[in-house]
C-alpha cells in the first residue's frame, strides 16, 4: 500500500477520468462542460507520465505534452464557438441547443 506503483497512478487516472465523464454528462452549462473535457485529458496525462516513469521511457511524456497542446487548442476553438453562440442567444445553455432532432 505504501509502495506507490504504476497501478496507483492508473487507478487515480481512471477515477479522474470518471469524474470527467460525470461532468460531461451532467453539465448543462457549456463552459463548465468544457472544464470536464479538460479533466478527461488531464487524467490521461497523469497516467501517461506515470507509465513513462515506470518504463523509464520518454514516449509517455511526449504524448502528455501533445495532449496538453491539443487541450489548449481545443479551448481556443471551443471558446470561439461559445462566444458565437452567446452573441446570438445570450446564453450558453446546452438545453437551448436542440433545434435539430429526430
Amino acid at each position, binding site marked *: *500500500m*505504501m*509502495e*506507490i506503483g*504504476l*497501478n*496507483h*497512478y*492508473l*487507478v*487515480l487516472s*481512471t*477515477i*479522474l477520468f*470518471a*469524474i470527467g*465523464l*460525470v*461532468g460531461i*454528462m*451532467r*453539465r*448543462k*452549462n457549456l*463552459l*463548465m462542460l*468544457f*472544464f*470536464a473535457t*479538460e*479533466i478527461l485529458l*488531464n487524467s490521461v*496525462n*497523469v497516467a501517461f*507520465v506515470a507509465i513513462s516513469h515506470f*518504463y*523509464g*521511457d*520518454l*514516449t509517455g511524456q*511526449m504524448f*502528455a*505534452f501533445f495532449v*496538453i*497542446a*491539443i*487541450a*489548449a*487548442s*481545443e*479551448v*481556443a476553438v471551443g*471558446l*470561439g464557438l*461559445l*462566444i*458565437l453562440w*452567446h452573441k446570438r442567444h445570450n446564453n*450558453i*445553455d446546452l438545453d437551448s441547443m436542440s433545434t435539430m432532432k429526430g
Partner: protein
Amino acid sequence: MFEAIAFYLFAFLTIAMFYITVTTSQALYALTALAAGMIFISAFFFILGADFLGAVQIVVYSGAVMALYAFGMMFFDTTRDVKEKQGNKYVVVGLSTIAAVLVVLIFMAPIISENITAIYPVGDGGNTQEIGMVLFTKYLVPFEVAAVMLLVAMISGIVLAGKKMDESLTLQSEEEINEKDNK
C-alpha cells in the same frame, strides 16, 4: 514513504478539486477548482520526474487556459447560477460509476509485462534536455503539426470570435449584401 504520502495527498486533492469542478453550481468555483486541480496534477509530474511537463502543465493550464476561460466567463457573465436541471441523475451517476468501477477493477491487476523495452530511455541529462532531444528528432513531425494545430486554433478563435461573424451573409439576401458592399 514520502512518495506515498505525497501521492495520496495530491490524489485526494486532485480528486476533490475535480469533483468540485463537476459538481458545483458556481462557475467561478468550478474554474478555481479546475485551476487548482491542474496545479496539483503538475505535482504528480514533478514526483514522477517529468519536470518539463510539470512546468508546461502549470504554464499552459494555469496560465493560458485558465486565463482564456476566465475571459470567457466574464464575457458570458456566468457568475450567475446556471440551473442544472438533471433529466435523469441515475443515468449519469450509474454510467460513470460503472465506467470507473470497470476500469478500476481491471487495473487492480498487475499490468507491466516483461517484454517491454524502453525505446527512448531516460538518460543522465536533465529531463528538459532529453525531452528536447526526443521532441526534435523523433517527434519533430508531430511537433510541427501541433504547431499547425495551434495556428489553426488561433485562426479559428479569431475568425469565430471576430466581428465579421456578427452579420451573417448566409442569412442576408443578395440585395442586402450588395447594398452593404456599395456603402
